[in-house]
């Protein structure tokens, strides 16, 4: 499913890993394999490289060195046109939500389905059901700026899972949620994992990890300390 083999990543001054002069390396010799259908925590202090590792997994950057394989495709050598299809199979919950401010909650959640070319009738049914599930049925036509932080995060979660992704990545997904909502979210992740989705959740929340024991990738200073 996901294979890191001696991966190094450095950002250029242009902000990507592939253009301009390479800068300081933020990930060093990272190697691991995530089997299909696994659930993993991604742990480590701030600046350890968790977000960079996730960015590699959701194909926002390509590795500077090493070999990265996702869904059987070698990312470092894959053609650009091969990547959109892979991205459509990956759901991401961003720490800063990354919602489109000019679209309603409904249209934000519907976006991955529209990009994938799904029929509008199916989109309406799926998105309405998903918004009901995250408790935002009444706010379907509301724009993100009018929603609270927790509500925006739920929209972001709904958008990440609406496409039933094969790989689900979450960066501090419970940061703006109360305990009850966090529990509900973990239930959703567990349920998706049970249905076959590979899940990786980056978090600082040790109590959340303690309540939901699972294998963990632990990073420090850009190095993988090991799997626990």
């Amino acid at each position, binding site marked *: 499913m996901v294979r890191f083999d001696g991966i190094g990543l450095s950002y250029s001054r*242009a902000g*990507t*890993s*592939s*253009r301009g002069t390479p800068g300081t390396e933020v990930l060093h010799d990272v190697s691991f394999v995530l089997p299909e259908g696994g659930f993993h925590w991604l742990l480590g202090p701030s600046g350890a490289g968790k977000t960079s590792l996730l960015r590699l997994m*959701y*194909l*926002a*950057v*390509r590795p500077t060195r090493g070999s990265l394989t996702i869904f059987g495709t070698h990312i470092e050598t894959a053609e*650009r*046109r091969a*990547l*959109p*299809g*892979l*991205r*459509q*199979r*990956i759901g*991401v919950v961003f720490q800063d939500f*990354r919602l*489109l401010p*000019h*679209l309603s909650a409904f*249209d934000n959640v519907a*976006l*991955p389905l*529209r*990009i*994938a*070319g*799904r*029929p*509008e009738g199916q989109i309406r049914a799926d998105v309405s059901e998903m918004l009901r599930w995250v408790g935002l049925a009444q706010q379907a036509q509301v724009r993100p700026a009018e929603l609270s932080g927790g509500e925006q995060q739920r929209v972001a979660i709904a*958008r990440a899972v609406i496409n039933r992704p094969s790989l689900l990545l979450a960066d501090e997904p419970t940061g703006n949620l109360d305990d009850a909502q966090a529990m509900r979210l973990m239930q959703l992740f567990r349920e998706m994992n049970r249905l076959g989705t590979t899940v990786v959740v980056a978090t600082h929340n040790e109590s959340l990890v303690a309540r939901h024991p699972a294998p963990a990738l632990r990073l420090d200073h850009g190095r993988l300390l090991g799997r626990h």
Partner: protein
Amino acid sequence: MAVLRTRRVLRPAGFDELGLRRALADRMLPFLVAAMSFLAALTMAGWVGAASLARHWQQGAGSALTVQVPQPQEPAAQGGGSRLARVVGLLSGTPGIVEVRPLDDEELADLLRPWLGSGAERLALPLPAVIAVRLADPELRLDGLAGRLGTAAPGTLVESHGVWIGRLAKLARSLQACAGLALLVVAGVAASVIAVATRAGLAARREAIEIVHGLGASDGYIAARFAGRATLLAATGGAAGAVAALPVLLALGSLAAPFGAVQPGFDSPGGVLAALPAALWLTLPGLPVVSAVIGCLTAQGTVRSWLRRLP
């Protein structure tokens, strides 16, 4: 193709995920494209006018000689018959001349219209006969021809105009080439304006583009959003420019009318249509189409090139 059509049907009308209605605003770009379209319409009028003149002059250059015979029906000084018939006979028998054609009354009236108006025939002026002569070679020298004609019909004038008509035709062709070049420049400026607007839109919507890109949108998907918007705005501008140019072209057409074969009357049925050459009526509606194509292709190219910076 079938897939594309299906996707277009499925997308909700007006769904603007990249917020391009604000990023590519509906005022400045159409205004600038309208200005380009206006200039293109005027340049096309120049092209059509120069082409028409070149055609007329080239036809004239074929008749490299014009012979005027005053009092054409009077008896000739030599050889019997009328002066006109004698001159035609002499010309027809001259080696190197392939056609001798006396102009009829209608053609004479056409020639005189720019100076005397459409009622020249009513003035009862003693008009000479005019004979159009076509030579096998426009450069052919016919030494002594004028003398022989003058002897047979005194007062006959021979005017050779092949050389300067040829030069005028070359000038007209040069004007056409300049008009073509100007059209290319106008199209290039229009494409540049659209490229700059698209780049500004890309900069303004960078974050939205990165989000949509991260959700699995292909370069073609994102470029199509920009191209759709740019096509609409460019077509609007192109249509506005063509409409704005129409009264100017009609005014120019009415000024140029006395030099043409047909004098249009704006009050007569079809007068407005006749005021402009058919070629202009056919190409004016093409301006919004060409503007739309330039807008679409430029936006596609600009966006696809920009997207290459993303992984």
